[in-house]
């Protein structure tokens, strides 16, 4: 297996799907001549041309809305929002249209649209460019929420997203683009939605994570091992659908759970995940579920303050020591 970056894995997925299906096209701000603000679409314009790699004006609402229309018209649009922060301008189209149309129109509408967007903090980009907004989309029925941590999953989940029928919010973490990992070659590497990945088996505590926090969870597990605590690390991969069965199975074994995520603590995806574990496996829990998340504050610019706001390996370790 080739070792490539998360960014290259996404680029590979796009190339393979553009090759496989003529209906697939990419549209967004700076995806063409600039090569993508984070270089995910780098080199695609030269190969696939302006028809299939389309630079758009800065009009997020209409980029997403016209992606919806194009999907209804039989195409397979992959829309890139330069960052999820700008996606807030498109919330009406995402929530009121994409998410609802299949149900609201009596099952007759199909919106096979993929909306890709980088998110997350850690680069001193300030309050408006450092958010993790997955909970907004998780809250809304009708959207699939996909949030890969590894290069292999970035590729396999994006390909699955492009091939399936429902609107997908595909959230990439800005800190992960340079992360390297083994990625299966060949165009049929597909990762199914709703199947969590047990990255490390353990018997004392379950650390549930997704996106960048998966790496924090793995780092914490290593430290905990030295302290004699055997942690299991579960990468959710997709928040909707949620692989609750795997979580319950893990918690039945360990009796304790930590949910680690970069969104704000209040009303974050971790709250929902914890609630679902309580509902399904309360009798197996030996301690309250711990949440490790971002502090409830707009992201400060200062490096030290930003680090203190974000969840960390140390906080996960502390949470584990409290309950394990």
């Amino acid at each position, binding site marked *: 297996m080739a070792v490539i970056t998360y960014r290259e894995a996404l680029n590979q997925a796009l190339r393979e799907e553009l090759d496989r299906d003529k209906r697939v*096209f990419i549209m967004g701000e700076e995806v063409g001549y600039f090569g993508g603000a984070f270089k995910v679409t780098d080199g695609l314009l030269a190969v696939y041309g302006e*028809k299939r790699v389309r630079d*758009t*004006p800065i*009009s997020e*609402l*209409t980029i*997403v*809305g*016209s*992606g*919806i*229309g*194009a*999907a*209804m*018209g*039989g*195409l397979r*649009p992959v829309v890139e929002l330069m960052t999820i922060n700008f996606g807030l301008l498109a919330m*009406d*189209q995402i929530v*009121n*249209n994409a998410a609802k*149309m*299949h*149900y*609201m*129109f*009596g*099952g*007759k*509408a*199909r919106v096979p649209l993929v909306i890709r967007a980088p998110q997350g903090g850690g680069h001193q980009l300030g309050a408006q460019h450092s958010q993790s907004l997955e909970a907004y989309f998780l809250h809304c*029925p*009708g959207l*699939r929420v996909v949030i890969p941590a590894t290069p292999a999953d970035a590729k396999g989940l994006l390909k699955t997203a492009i091939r*399936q*029928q*429902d609107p997908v919010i595909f959230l990439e973490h800005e800190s992960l683009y340079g992360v390297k990992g083994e990625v299966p070659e060949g165009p049929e590497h597909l990762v199914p939605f709703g199947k969590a990945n047990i990255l490390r088996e353990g018997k004392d505590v379950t650390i549930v994570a997704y996106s960048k926090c998966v790496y924090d969870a793995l780092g914490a597990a290593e430290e905990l091992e030295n302290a004699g605590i055997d942690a299991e690390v579960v990468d959710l991969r997709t928040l909707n659908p949620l692989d609750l069965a795997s979580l319950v199975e893990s918690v039945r074994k360990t009796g304790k759970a930590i949910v680690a995520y970069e969104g704000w603590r209040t009303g974050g995806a971790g709250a929902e995940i914890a609630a679902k574990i309580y509902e399904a496996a309360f009798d197996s829990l030996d301690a309250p579920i711990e949440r490790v998340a971002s502090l409830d504050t707009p992201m400060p610019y200062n490096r030290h303050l930003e680090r203190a706001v974000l969840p960390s390996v140390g906080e996960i370790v502390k949470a584990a020591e409290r309950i394990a």
Partner: protein
Amino acid sequence: MALERDMHTAQHALLTLQETQLLEFYRRMLLIRRFEDKTAEMYARGKITGFCHLYAGEEAVAVGAISALYDKDYVVSTYREHGHCLAKGASPRVVMAELFGKVTGISRGHGGSMHLFDPDLRFMGGYAIVGAGLPVATGLALSVQYNEGPEVVCAFFGDGALPQGAFHESLNLASIWKLPVVFICENNFYGMGTMVQNAVSQEELYKFAVPYKMPGVRVDGMDVLEVYGATMEAAARAREGDGPSLIEAVTYRFRGHSMSDPAEYRSKREERIWQERDPIKLMHRRLVADRHVAETRLEEIERQVAESIEDAVRFADESPEPPLDDLGKGVYIEE
């Protein structure tokens, strides 16, 4: 000027179109009017609930524009959409059943008055957020252009959508990509109760075509032939690959914004003036005076329309409710 030119177009259409086509315009407008009258009655009787925005008075816009399209052309609408949906060929039965919330409705009772949809008719939905259908229409047009198809997309919206970002973003994108869209603004002078001049800096709405470098015309939206002529021209242009157009159809809703609105912000005098310009009465006069159509033929159409509306109500009333067993299903295609 735009108005003069289009009056000429309308007169030309009146004299040159086949009588069957003119009668079809009349029939469709009448169908919409009687449908809306019946809808108001059913609403008052509690058979229809929720928000319900009637199209009475504006029939010439939907019928004129949609008659200028082919069946395969797309229509995107708003929450005031019964007229567009019927004009695109939906059976009054399935529209009325939807208003009744029945499983036989065009959206299986999931949508209601504001969310009618039928891809087979290429009626691509009613959108209940002002302006939100415009990006969708733009994207449908992109799919047509991408596939090098012959279709055009006709997007209806009200004057209330003009100040929305979605309007400006969509016209801009459609223009730079030369997409086959006909943007049809139904200017009925009020966004709910707010007069257009209190909401839009340029109240001659068709002039918004200028910054977006597309043709813009204002037509009399009470004259089905004017709307028809302007849409023919815009659709032909779109089909040729020359890009979008903006048509402002000046019209008037004979009822309030919705069923719960008595429209007290409008004067009775103003309403009377527009009632006299009733698009159906205008067409009736023309058919009799200019084309010498026998009154009995128009009466026959009236009778047929009345029958189909009665049939639609009976169908809706007798149809079953959506089953509770299905609740929670159908949110995703791939469950």
